[in-house]
């Protein structure tokens, strides 16, 4: 996803990924609601949630749980959606400040240069 997704798109992607994991496990498709508890209502295990997070990292290009949000604070589907909204909004602000990927590449190159000199 090259452009910044809207809040509605984030919600849609998160719901889709959760549904996919549930379908894969039980073979059944079920509607997802924001208030659904990931574990208590939907029966997602921590490993299932890890799969969802790994998929979302690629799909949305963000990982809120690396630094921003503790995974233990996420209980419901809405909590998960909110974590990604937060990460993407802050990530976008940060990207605007440092010109995103180009700046990251420059940082990596500088880091390598420093390493080689050591």
């Amino acid at each position, binding site marked *: 996803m090259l452009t910044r997704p809207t809040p509605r798109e984030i919600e849609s992607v998160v719901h889709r990924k959760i549904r996919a994991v549930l379908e894969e496990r039980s073979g059944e498709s079920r509607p997802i609601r924001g208030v659904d508890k990931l574990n208590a209502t939907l029966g997602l295990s921590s*490993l299932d949630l890890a*799969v969802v997070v790994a998929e979302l990292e690629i799909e949305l*290009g963000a*990982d809120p749980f690396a630094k921003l949000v503790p995974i233990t604070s996420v209980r419901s589907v809405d909590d998960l959606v909110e974590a990604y909204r937060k990460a993407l909004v802050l990530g976008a602000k940060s990207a605007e400040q440092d010109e995103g990927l180009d700046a*990251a590449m420059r940082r*990596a190159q500088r880091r*390598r240069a420093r*390493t080689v000199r050591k």
Partner: protein
Amino acid sequence: MLMRGRTGIGASQLASHPRSGRIATTTAGAASRKVALVTGGSRGLGAELVSGFLERRCAVATLSRTKTEFIKQTLRRSRRGNDFHWAALDASDHDALQDFVAEVTARFGRIDVLVNNMGMAVEGILPTMRTRDIVDTVEVNLIAALVVSHACSRVMLRQGGGCIVNISSINAIRGQAGVAVYSATKAALDGLTRSLARELGPRNIRVNSVAPGYFESDMVKHMAADWKRRILRRTPLGRLARIEDVANAVQFLASDQASFITGQTIVVDGGISC
């Protein structure tokens, strides 16, 4: 196995990166072969593992602090980077480690095998060791392995399977004066092996350790002759391990032949610890 100094690591380019929001692209034709990531593959056991995976027609990525002659030769032999990728970086640079995993995934499309081989040892008893050396050893031997495993496990979760092999040591399972910090980090890796095997097993990701004893290496070259004789006397198989003895155990664990083995530590020491 003890090494003086580090076997090391690096990121070359941030081609396609999850944090950037860009979707990874795969090198043409790479999707059908196994992809192995070996940390610290510039010399010793790491280099042996890199060669072994290449011989098995895997795509191989490795990282080290320095570009050794082995790395230069392997890069020359690589078919335009289609089967081998190397980068130089420091183990304490966690972002760079994560970037490297993303880069390998972008380049080769997947990661089937991770071997956490990178390691260092500073010999000396704990009371007189410099704090910096303690921290560096934990950083390289343990934290870096955790950071790389964290990133690789996500790739493996997405692709629905994989295999992690941690290079431990017999010093993780029995005491040895002068290597307390090294032993602690290697025992921690064995703990990681068992718990991660339980965490990731349901997703078809296997995690095992190989714990080498003494093997022919630069370290053994400097060993006093009488000490070496003592080791040989106590080893039922009557010799030091060859580097390929250890590499073969790793290759076995990484292969489909070990498809029902997880959470285990295989000791490769000629029987010295039995």
